[in-house]
């Protein structure tokens, strides 16, 4: 019978999934730890210890690269490899290449972090790593694409499920952005000069920078959401049509938003204007996904009783709605006038990073690890404690940065009746200390929650190998 002959001989390659997951948790602890440390430095500058590699300026990119490319990309690799196999119903294509991707990526991260501490930097945000790393990243990234799309290409089921469009979009677009934004002339192993200068360079950088957020932190994690949410709730996606519209509208409009990082700067107004308009339009596809997800899970509420993972994903969706809405709003020039250069932007970033990215990942991990280990989660109670720590940490972070950022923005612009500045910069800066203290506390709370998760997952998985799961039979109607 054709179905039996179609069944692949080997099991899913989940060892590699497990490895990525472990790296992701390790980076979460490390990079968030650095984040908490630099937050402390803004309150107690003595913590710079007059040491070059401990200064805020060098540690900050270690934090950002560590959370985005360490924690985030490792999580996307783990969940991506996990879900692409199961939605294609085949084991991973080229498993040895996949191993190269994973270990190659981790090597780049570790060496890259060390290089940042040494002062090797292009200064372009989220693209700080110098040219040798950029080349290495490209090689690993193309391999990642080959493994991922190769798996899809040899699928046994005809349609390509929606989560794979989002993961695929993430891989393709990040590759494209990486190539163009890192074009540079190398001078020595640790230094290069960007191919473009000044205003064009700025526009290029934020085409990259915003879409790193758009396609990595949003797109990739939406892929995660589209696979894990229906799985966890045992419900099919609420609306297939909505997911199609959302994906293409998202992929088209997000790319335009970059220059909203450059409002009122020396770039052409028409570029700022198009970015602003598209940033507002972008809200529609973003929320379409959120609504689709909320409606999918609302039918599965009984699961919340026993499943902490689902709690994380549900709350992540609320924060996703908040962050995408706030983003569109901050992209309006009249709001941006106040928010640009302030801590409001930092608060916005973290409402997305902590509230959406971290939480949806934690949900996915709490779901995946028991499945990989073949036994239940070590402690549901700890996971629930983690949930409240994550929620309070995130809320405290957002609130303290809203207070700080709005104060800063307004006080900087504050003039009296005759048009003279009311406040000196240094006075405004000094008044931020209390908010920075609250933010440090918030980060610490969030990190504690993450540590509980690391412990919980470690106790669940231990040193076990991943369970050998096999692809199932395919319904003949959908067979390739």
């Amino acid at each position, binding site marked *: 019978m054709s179905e039996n002959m179609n069944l692949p001989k080997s099991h899913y390659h989940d060892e590699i999934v497990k490895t990525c997951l472990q790296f992701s948790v390790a980076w979460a602890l490390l990079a968030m730890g650095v984040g908490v440390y630099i937050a402390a430095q803004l309150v107690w500058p003595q913590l710079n210890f007059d040491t070059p590699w401990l200064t805020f300026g060098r540690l900050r990119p270690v934090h950002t690269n560590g959370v985005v490319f360490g924690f985030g990309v490792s999580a996307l690799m783990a969940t991506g490899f996990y879900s692409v196999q199961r939605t294609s119903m085949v084991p991973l294509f080229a498993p040895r290449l996949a191993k190269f991707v994973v270990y190659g990526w981790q090597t780049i991260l570790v060496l890259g972090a060390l290089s940042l501490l040494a002062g090797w930097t292009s200064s372009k945000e989220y693209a700080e790593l110098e040219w040798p790393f950029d080349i290495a990243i490209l090689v690993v990234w193309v391999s990642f694409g080959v493994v991922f799309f190769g798996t899809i290409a040899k699928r046994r089921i005809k349609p390509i499920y929606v989560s794979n469009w989002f993961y695929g979009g993430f891989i393709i677009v990040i590759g494209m952005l990486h190539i163009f934004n890192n074009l540079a002339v190398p001078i020595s192993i640790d230094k290069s000069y960007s191919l473009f200068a000044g205003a064009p360079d700025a526009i290029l950088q934020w085409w990259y920078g915003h879409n790193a957020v758009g396609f990595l932190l949003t797109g990739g994690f939406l892929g995660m959401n589209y696979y894990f949410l229906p799985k966890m709730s045992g419900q099919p996606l609420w609306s297939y049509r909505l997911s199609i519209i959302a994906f293409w509208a998202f992929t088209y409009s997000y790319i335009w938003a970059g220059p909203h990082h450059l409002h009122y700067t020396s770039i052409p107004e028409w570029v700022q204007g198009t970015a602003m308009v598209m940033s507002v339009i972008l809200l529609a596809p973003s929320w379409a996904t959120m609504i689709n997800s909320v409606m999918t899970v609302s039918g599965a*509420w009984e699961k919340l*009783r026993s499943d902490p993972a689902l709690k994380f994903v*549900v709350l992540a969706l609320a924060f996703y709605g908040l962050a995408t809405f706030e983003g569109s709003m901050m992209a309006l020039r009249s709001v941006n006038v106040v928010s640009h250069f302030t801590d409001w932007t930092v608060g916005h970033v973290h409402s997305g990073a902590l509230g959406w990215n971290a939480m949806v990942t934690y949900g996915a991990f709490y779901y995946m690890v028991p499945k990989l280990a073949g036994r239940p989660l070590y402690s549901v109670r700890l996971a629930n404690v983690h949930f409240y720590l994550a929620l309070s940490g995130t809320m405290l972070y957002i609130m303290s940065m809203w*207070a700080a950022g709005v104060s800063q923005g307004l006080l900087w612009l504050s003039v009296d009746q005759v048009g003279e500045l009311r*406040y000196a910069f240094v006075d405004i800066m000094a008044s931020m200390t209390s908010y920075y203290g609250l933010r440090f506390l918030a980060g610490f709370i969030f990190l504690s929650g993450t540590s509980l998760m690391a412990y919980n997952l470690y106790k669940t998985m231990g040193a076990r190998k991943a369970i050998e799961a096999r692809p199932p039979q395919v319904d003949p109607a959908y067979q390739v």
Partner: protein
Amino acid sequence: MTKNPIVFSFRSFFHPFATFQSLAGTELSPRAVFFSYALWLLLLPPLFSWLGAYASGWHLGAKEPLVLTPKSLTIVSIGYFLLLMFGFVSTAIISRWMAGTYGASRSLGLHFALVAIVGTPLALASVAHLFPHVFFNVLVLIPTMIWSMYLLYRGLPIILQTPPERGMLMASSLVAWLLVAAVSLLGISMALWTAGVGPFLGV
């Protein structure tokens, strides 16, 4: 259930879950909830902020306080009150709109009561406005808000008679609405102020 707003507010402040229990399944008039209870709570923050700002100006952190004329203060306080009213009513209405999806009670009066009881700690904590230092208010109101959120998550299933997990989903959706409303408030304020409607900004 007592109709006396002062007694009611203290009772719901100290025994919120007992209050939720006693209201569950009852018929409540939204008008009664509003006029005998919620309205008075909503008046507190604008009142306290007017008094505090009149007495010592707004301490925004950077050296001298910002002193406004009583007339401007009154305008700001009235705006604050109208805003809180809008927030209260809209949240209750949206909550009722969501009730269908989550199998919760559709009695508007109960939704008014839910929002009022959940908001009581914040209304009472607004006494912090008597000391109009931004950071002090932030320090008092954030824990209060966390407490209010806790009341929402645990109280909603009780008063609206829905299973805890379903209530959790609905509460999360309400939280999402509140966050969006808060952010819209920020954005609209900024847009208005930079357009000249409000304090003078050198834009």
